[in-house]
Structure formats: structure tokens, C-alpha cells
């Protein structure tokens, strides 16, 4: 393309009608459309969807998908992948329950302290996993895909070894009552936590140097380094934040389940990548916004709930997830090609 036509395209783009529609679709229009269609269709087909208890259930599931999806988004916008996110959730669930179980033997009655201690330790585990992931990716320049795949295997192995696959009971009662089932302003506590995390992510991405550096490293690592961005430090921050968010998910899931389970999170890597990609996160890094990932996570939670309500077999549910993902990817690719043409 010659320089002159390029200038013209750029200058004319906002006033052009078709490209305004394209822009809307590029900047979240797809996921908004998906979400509205899913909600309206589900409400029409199955009125029980709008039942208060069901909506609360959707909200809780949404919250527990949103937090790890934001973790996935952080790593993906930095140009990587985190396949270990589900394994971190499982491992930290086990850690949370184990800390409470052992702690209540030595410090009976100190429930609040035990809850805080288990949270801190779980977050520590998540951050450590993120640090190791980032270290392997940035120091040895290994593929993030392989590093986090191996990490997933290691963590699942450890979690299964310690628990023999048996759930760890003995979680503090007030933890389940106040965190897992707790409500504030008649909305689940876990939803408030997830929305808080979402707000923090939006602010981080838009208004801080770290957010901008994550985009820069994901978009073009060499250019970012030449521009004076500390690329290793940025990658470490992205992976550690992702580890922290995955650990927070493990902690919250334990409060919902009332036990520590080494078998949860098996499909979470796929689900979080699906949420991120449907929310417009680029597989090549550098592009992605937290608010759109949140809409995509909500969309996935709605269709999962809808399929449960109309009693679709769980085997078919993964099939639907895969199909939705392919359709979203194909639409994104078509729009991108149109814009670049």
C-alpha cells in the first residue's frame, strides 16, 4: 500500500459509515451482541432463568469465572498463555483447606485469623507459581505455552499426591457461611470481590505505566525493550498478578465448596482462554480490555446456566463451548482482515 492511500484511510476512517460499524464490532460489539442474545433467548425459552435464586447462582459462577479470566487476560495481553491457571486454583484450594484444618487443631476458635492466614498463604503460592512461570519464560525465553503446560502438570501432580484425590474437609464454618454463602447488599460476596478485581484491572490497564508496559511487551517485545521498558520485570508482574488472581479463585472456590479439592479447575484453562478471546483479547498479545473480558465471562456463565436449566447433558456443554469459541474467533479474524484490507 502506498503511503498516500494509507494516510487517506486513516484520516477517513471515523467518518466512514461501514467502518464505524466495524469499529463498534471490533471494540466489544461482538461480545455485547452475544451477551444480549444469550440473555434474551434464555429468558424466553426458560422463564426460570429470571428466578432470583437462579440469578444469584449465575452471579456466583460468573464471579468465579471472571477472576481467573482476568488472570488469563493479563498473561495473554503480555504475549503469553497461562495454562496453569486451573491447576493453581486446585492447588490453592487444597492449601486453603489444609491450612484451616491444621490451624484449627493448634489454634481452635481463632477462625478469622485462620481465614486470613489461609488466604495469605494461598496468595503466596499463586504468586510463587507466577514468578516461576515468568522466570522461565523471560530468562530462558521458553514458550509460555509449554512452560505453563508443564507447570499445570507439576501442580496437579503435587495436589493429587497430597490429597490422594480425596477432598479435604475441616474448613472453618464461618468461612463457608460468610464468604462462600455470604451476601452484601443482597449480592454474593464473591461477586463483590470479583467486581473489585475487575475495577482494579481496568484502572491498571488504562491509567498506570504497568498496564501500558504489559500491552507494549505483548505487542512487540523487542520494540518495548528498545524503548526502555523493563520487559522481564513487566512479564514477572503480569504472571505474578495472574498467579495471585488464580489463587484468589482457589480460595473463593473452597469457600463455596466447603472443602479443598484437588480435582477442580480441570477445564478452567480452556474456559478462561475462551472468555479472554471472546472478549477480544488477541492471541498474539498486546490487545485486550478487562471490561470486555468480563462481559464474555458473563456470556459464558449465562449459556452454561441456560444449558443446565434445559438439562443439556454436560458432555454436550463442552461441545457448545468449543463451537462458540470457534465462531467468535472466525468473526474477529474476518473483521481484522476487513480493517487491514
Amino acid at each position: 500500500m502506498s503511503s498516500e492511500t494509507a494516510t487517506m484511510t486513516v484520516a477517513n476512517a471515523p467518518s466512514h459509515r461501514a467502518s464505524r460499524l466495524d469499529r463498534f464490532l471490533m471494540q466489544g460489539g461482538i461480545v455485547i451482541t452475544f451477551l444480549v442474545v444469550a440473555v434474551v433467548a434464555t429468558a424466553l425459552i426458560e422463564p426460570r432463568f429470571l428466578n432470583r435464586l437462579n440469578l444469584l447462582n449465575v452471579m456466583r459462577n460468573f464471579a468465579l469465572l471472571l477472576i481467573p479470566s482476568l488472570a488469563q487476560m493479563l498473561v495473554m495481553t503480555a504475549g503469553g498463555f497461562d495454562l496453569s491457571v486451573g491447576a493453581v486454583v486446585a492447588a490453592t484450594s487444597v492449601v486453603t483447606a489444609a491450612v484451616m484444618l491444621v490451624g484449627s487443631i493448634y489454634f481452635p476458635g481463632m477462625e478469622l485469623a485462620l481465614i486470613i492466614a489461609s488466604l495469605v498463604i494461598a496468595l503466596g503460592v499463586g504468586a510463587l507459581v507466577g514468578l516461576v512461570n515468568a522466570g522461565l519464560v523471560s530468562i530462558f525465553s521458553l514458550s509460555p505455552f509449554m512452560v505453563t503446560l508443564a507447570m499445570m502438570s507439576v501442580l496437579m501432580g503435587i495436589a493429587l499426591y497430597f490429597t490422594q484425590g480425596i477432598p479435604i474437609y475441616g474448613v472453618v464454618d464461618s468461612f463457608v457461611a460468610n464468604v462462600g454463602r455470604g451476601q452484601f447488599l443482597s449480592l454474593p460476596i464473591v461477586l463483590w470481590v470479583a467486581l473489585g478485581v475487575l475495577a482494579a484491572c481496568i484502572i491498571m490497564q488504562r491509567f498506570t505505566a504497568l498496564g501500558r508496559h504489559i500491552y507494549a511487551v505483548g505487542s512487540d517485545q523487542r520494540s518495548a525493550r528498545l524503548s526502555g521498558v523493563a520487559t522481564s520485570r513487566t512479564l514477572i508482574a503480569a504472571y505474578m498478578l495472574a498467579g495471585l488472581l488464580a489463587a484468589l479463585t482457589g480460595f473463593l472456590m473452597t469457600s463455596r465448596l466447603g472443602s479443598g479439592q484437588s480435582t477442580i479447575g480441570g477445564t478452567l484453562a480452556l474456559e478462561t482462554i475462551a472468555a479472554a478471546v471472546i472478549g477480544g483479547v488477541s492471541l498474539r498479545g498486546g490487545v485486550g480490555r478487562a471490561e470486555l473480558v468480563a462481559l464474555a465471562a458473563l456470556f459464558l456463565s449465562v449459556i452454561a446456566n441456560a444449558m443446565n436449566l434445559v438439562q443439556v447433558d454436560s458432555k454436550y456443554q463442552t461441545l457448545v463451548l468449543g463451537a462458540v469459541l470457534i465462531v467468535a474467533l472466525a468473526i474477529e479474524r474476518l473483521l481484522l482482515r476487513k480493517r487491514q484490507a
Partner: protein
Amino acid sequence: MLEVTGFTKRFRGIAALDNVDFSLNEGEVHALLGENGAGKSTLINLIAGTFPWAEGVYRINGRTITSLTPQVAQEIGIAAVFQEFSLVPDLTVVENIFLGREQSSGLFLKRKQMRQAAAELLDSLGFHLPLDEKVAFLSRAQKQMVEIAKALRMRPKVLILDEPTASLTDGEAEKLFNAVALLKARGVGIIYVSHRMSEIRNLSDRVTVLRGGKKIGTVVTAEISDEGLIEMMVGRPVEQLFPKIEHKPGAVRLEVRDLTTEKHSVIGASFTARAGEVVGLAGLVGCGRSELCRAVFGLETIEAGTISLGDKPVERPTPTSMLAANVCYFPADRGSEGLALARSARENATMSSLDLPALSSGPVLKFWRETEAIKEPLGNLALRPMAPERRASAFSGGNQQKLMLARGLMKSFDVYLFDEPTVGIDVGAKADVYNLIKSLVEAGASVVVSTSELPELINLASRVYVMHEGKIVAELAQHELSEAQVLSHYFGGHA
């Protein structure tokens, strides 16, 4: 202000820069001149801290520096604009200008202030750019402007410009020259790398010429002629680099009529190439001459127009059908389009000739013949080292190019299309390539050369077509060929 002495840098034992001295004064434009591979980019990369130097002393403002990284270099006031940009495609113009140097109050970015500062900076340079557009959607010239603005955000004392006008139009280049004058007046020292004699003459105070990693000399620009500079650069009178080609234009071998590609990188181009002549395609990078060659070989989708070989029209060219029709194409990008870098020299040389009866019968390769078959072509090209089992990636740029060219010598083709045949290769390999072109033409083949190196066209071609923004704007015969003549058509032809 800046002074380096005895600078030496080796890559895998080979000296890319050998005991070079260089100095820069405040408010001076110091041009660096030399062929590809002469050590210009090594020198500016060392000064900018991209990689460490092996020997030598580096002083700036009287301070001796022992080691340098790009970040430290920027902090002490050295900024560089390389040909390869350091822009992040998914960030906007403003975000790129301040990348790595964001202004924040506490945790939060001062977004308004940065936008304001970027607008003022671009304004002071006379660059008009959409501030909030992602860099991915800018043209190359616009990216160049962003890159320059970015280099200036730190108010550097030393600015390195590496062929800054390579992708700019006349008007854009003019703005750049104004910006250079402005910075010079502010006392900024500028190291200016360029191939264009006129720029060096108009802008620079002194010129340092490098050849083969060694410094040939530093001269005051006003005191030396263009011919003198060229001789310093090439090391021999120009005629010796280029062989004398006997053109005997014969029957038309390739005829292109009103060719337009789907992407409109080529618009309505018509040209002919005859047996026994070298036809040149000239023009700026991005003018469409590469795409024209690619379209003929079936690598670009064609929207309209016809291609005929001899008098046979070609319906839908594909690389396979064009090879079968005796058309051979050598791409500009050896790494990504030409060679299988991880495979041996032998396999690369025979890659497109495996269907010749000499090398296979049916699906079975006569691998025992392969070594024998490549001996002659590789010998003629003087491959160095002559090691056919070595991986292609282990050869130097010039010798990788010879591996590509060897493919065209496995059998005799009627038409050879060369896209940038001498980019990034040293003078010796260049001469080998020119001699190859000579022998092909004199054996009766038709050769089309698309290149950004004007001396090649002037010395090798019998006719030159000049392209501008996808169109062929001029056809020049051999007796009309001069750098000034060709250049006058580069920007649309009304100069």
C-alpha cells in the same frame, strides 16, 4: 562532544568494525557513508549501546564510558532512529512516543499532559499525525515520523539517524531536513547515515567513510567531490565493480500488459523484457516493483491485465507453473521466502529442480547424483566456504544469496526475476552476483532486476522502468541512464 577511538567489534571472530575513530561536535551533522556491510550500522549500534564494543575508548562530554545499554545511552542524551523501528503496533502514537518514559503522578499516568506534550513535539517538527491512532494503522512514513519524535522526547544531545529518508516522499523528507536544521541550531550533534549523495551534501558538515569495517577517512563535506566520496566508499573506480555487459536484445520473452494486483500495489503496469538484455525496475521501497515481480511469478493475486511468455499468454501464474515455463524468481527476503535456513546448502540449491530427470525418476530422488549436480553452479558462484552439507543459516548473507542463485543455475531458464539481489551482502559477493547476471544475459536469457541501488541499474541495465506508487511512470533507455535522470522520476516524474 562525543568521541570514540580504536573501536573494534567482532561477530563470531570476524571483525565487523576494526579500530575505528569517530568524533562528533555540538551542532554538527556528521554523515556516515559506506556500502552495506561496511560497518556503519555496527558503529551506530555501539554508540547507541545496543551491544558492547570489544576494544576502544568511548568518551562523551569528557566522561569516559566503560559500558552502555540503550537505556543508559538515552539517559546520557544519545537517541537513535534505526531503520528497524522500535514502535509497538498496538499502542497509539502518543503512547508510543512516551513508551518507557511515561510521566506519572504517583501510580497514575498523566495522560493529558503526555498527549499535550506529544502534540507540541510533533508540531515543532512540522509532523501532522493522528495522535490517538494505533501505530499499526500508520504508513511507513508516518511511523518514521513517530520514531523521530520518540527519539527527541528526551531532548537528546546526540541524535543518530539511520537512512531516515529511505521511505519518505520528497515533501516528507523536506520536513525531516527542516527538523534536522532546527535541532542543529539547538546544538544537537547528529550522526546521519545515508546513501543519497545529495542529502549528504546538503546536510552534513563532515563525512566519515567506512569500508569493510575499517575507517577510510573523515573529510569536510565542502572539500570533496561526489566522485571522490564514491571512490573512498567503493575502494576502486566504479567501473571495476560492474562488469561490462554486451546486450543483444532479441525476441520478447516476457510481456506484461496493464497489470493490476488485487491489493493495488501495482496499477496498470506494462513492460517487456527481451532475450539477451537486463531490464531494470527502479523506484522507492514500496513503489510496487517488488510486487510486480511477485505478481509475474504468481505470488500476488492479479486483478486485471495479462502476462505472456514469448507469445503464449499465461492464464493464472503460480510459482509451479512459472518454473515449468522457464521463469525463475529470486525473492528479496532470503530468510523468510527463499531459503530453508535449517537445511543444508545442497538441499537448498536443488530445492526447485528435484523434478529434473538428472535428479529424480518418478518419486524417487537420485540423491547420489545431487552432490555432483550442484558442484558446477556452486563453483561458478564461488560459494565460500564450499561446504554443501553446511546448514544454510551458517553462511554469510552474501553466500546465502549465492545458494538462492544456485537454484536458478540448475537448469537454464528463459526469464530471471531478481528482487533486490544485493541487499545486505558485501562488495565481493556483489561483484559475483553481477558477473552471474552478465553470464546469464550473454547466454541469451532475459533478466529483470528490481533494486533500490541505482548504480546497479545504471551499470547493468539496457533499459530501466521507474515506478511510483504502483504505476510505471517512465521508461529510460541505456543512453538516458544517469542517477539524476532516474531519481527525477522517483516522486512521480514532474521534477
